[in-house]
């Protein structure tokens, strides 16, 4: 398949386009995903419509029309519940929750309705629903627009959660998510939208539930989520100077996360750091630490180290926000216990 370098945002746009071309039942909805509904000069198929607050869905309304790219009122519970209703009756909605921080407005439709329907109906229903949303600090969005709640979604039985780290994965995971007959939360780091990468032009999928090893190593495993793979790579570069070979795993899917890949890596390296930008308690990072310790206890040479956000809301001031996010320095400091150990071993 021919490839071209496009941005993370374009990759998602391309994925949505191809999913909608492939299957008439796929449609998108959300606040301003088209923009300008009922504005005469932005009528059906007009190129100047917004296409989402970040521009991710730009061009879809012009191509597919307002029937399949539906602007909603500011009514998250309502349109997310409508998406559940459309899904259980046979469509394949891809609603957008503009910021994952708005989860408190629509959680019931996911927690109590969509995620439980199949189970409580005795297996006699399907809810093919892909919820696109955004997460992440670093854009000075302050406490209500910078959170990372993929771990909260991941705690709900019946919900799959995907967090892509690059344009290739973004498109492939999105296409796989839309083909799922389940609820998938597809969470995009808003600070990655401008990232460029080679992406195949055609339709392809990246398997949900499979992690990928972005760098092989034998001394230390680092599991990352989304943008944090960049921090891990930088840490790996840094540690390579001391002869430490880091294996970096990009989780890709946060729920269900790929136990086999992670545990295999730990069995080889004996050491694990998890880098996760989300809040630190009852999180995916603690889940990974707990499961790995449980299943690979005898292989571990030291505790699993979690480098995460501090236990605070996201601050606004740029200097504080930078400190809030995991960084190379924070990883080296906070995981010094096992890194120093390793340095001794290697020296």
């Amino acid at each position, binding site marked *: 398949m021919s490839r071209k370098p496009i941005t993370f945002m374009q990759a998602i746009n391309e994925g949505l386009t191809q999913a909608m071309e492939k299957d008439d039942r796929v*449609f998108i909805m959300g606040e301003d995903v088209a923009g300008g509904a009922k504005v005469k000069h932005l009528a059906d198929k007009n190129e100047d419509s917004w296409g989402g607050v970040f521009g991710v869905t730009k061009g879809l309304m012009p191509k597919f029309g307002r*029937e399949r790219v539906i602007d*909603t*009122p500011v*009514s998250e*519970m*309502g*349109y*997310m*519940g*409508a*998406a*559940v*209703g*459309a*899904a*259980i*009756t*046979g*469509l394949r*909605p891809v609603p957008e929750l503009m910021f994952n921080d708005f989860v408190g407005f629509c959680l*019931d*439709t996911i927690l*109590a*309705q969509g995620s439980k*329907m*199949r*189970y*409580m*109906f*005795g*297996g*006699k*229903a*399907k*809810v093919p629903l892909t919820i696109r949303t955004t997460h992440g600090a670093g854009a000075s969005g302050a406490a209500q627009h910078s959170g990372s709640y993929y771990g909260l979604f991941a705690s709900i*039985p*019946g919900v*799959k959660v995907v967090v892509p780290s690059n344009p290739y994965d973004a498109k492939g995971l999105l296409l796989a998510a839309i083909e799922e*007959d*389940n609820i998938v939360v597809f969470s995009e780091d808003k600070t990655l939208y401008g990232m460029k990468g080679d992406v195949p032009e055609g339709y392809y999928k990246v398997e949900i539930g499979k992690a990928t090893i972005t760098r092989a190593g034998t001394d230390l495993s680092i599991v990352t989520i989304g943008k944090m793979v960049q921090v891990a790579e930088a840490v790996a570069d840094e540690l390579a100077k001391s002869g430490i070979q880091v294996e970096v795993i990009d989780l890709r899917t946060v729920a269900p996360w790929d136990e086999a890949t992670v545990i295999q890596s730990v069995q080889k390296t004996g050491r694990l750091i998890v880098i996760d930008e989300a809040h630190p308690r009852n999180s995916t990072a603690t889940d990974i630490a707990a499961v790995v310790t449980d299943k690979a206890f005898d292989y571990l040479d030291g505790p699993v180290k979690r480098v995460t956000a501090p236990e605070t809301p996201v601050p606004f001031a740029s200097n504080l926000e930078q400190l809030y996010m995991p960084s190379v320095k924070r990883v080296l400091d906070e995981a010094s216990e096992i890194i120093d150990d390793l340095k001794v071993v290697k020296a």
Partner: protein
Amino acid sequence: MKQLTPDLAKTAYKYMNDIRHFEDRVHKVFLTGAIPGFVHLYAGEEAVAVGVCSHLTDSDYITSTHRGHGHCIAKGCDVNGMMAEIYGKATGLNNGKGGSMHIADVDKGMLGANGMVSGGMPIAVGAGLRNKYLKTDDVAVCFFGDGANNEGNFHEAMNMASIWKLPVIFVNENNNFAEATPQIYATAAKTIAQRAEAYDMPSERVDGKNFMAVFEAAGRAIDRARQGDGPTLIECKTYRNYGHFEGDQQTYKYDSPEEEAFAKRDDIQEFRAYAVSEGLFTAAEADQIEQQSTDDIEAAVKFAEDSPLPDPESLYEDVFAD
């Protein structure tokens, strides 16, 4: 608009009796302890569910509430499967995994009772959106209580259905109370029907104990919806025969002689008298239907009692579709 033919009248009368017998029977069994959990009975409100659902086919959708048995029966769900579900048996409509508050039969267009007050409202909007998206003339009916009308879901669902002109009929079952809280305390509007104006939506307020009043209002609304003329709100004044849930002492009943008189009206008897006087069926036929209904519900109880518990392994199944 669908007319009330003799056949339809008999089916409706059968369903009304089925609901009443079903609920009376569940009430008795609950006292024995054989049925666990939170059970909310629909007896007394039969005219609403049956009056509305008499217009529907299996390809129309409904969403229901925690007080859902009546909607299920009116939409054609199998009473054996329902009763077994309430007992938590493997033969239940949901294989015993849902219980009273989650009975569903998607193939029959029944999208589930719902333990969340107002939980079904946006789901109905989604079903209506689907009907329009696929250019069908199917409708979606959303049953909800007077309590539910104060949830944000009501507002968002009504507004969306209106701006998108969706084929959704919002059927409010105003039975005076949300648990022990009167509608007149909790709802600032003088009537619930009146709230439709805030969404530029037509509405009616009908005597929910009167089958024909419900049937005709629903017919008008459903016709409009099928023709692409958008949603309607119908407020049905009704009353439940039992407590909020099984076990409720009902100290809040009755606040006035009028309330008591209204509460004691029997929608089934009223419909029988009307139908017989209009020649839709004879008194003998009515008796026969009643007997058949008693027998069917008795059989359902036996079916449920004789059915096995779910396989323990099913605990882990059907979280995801694959």
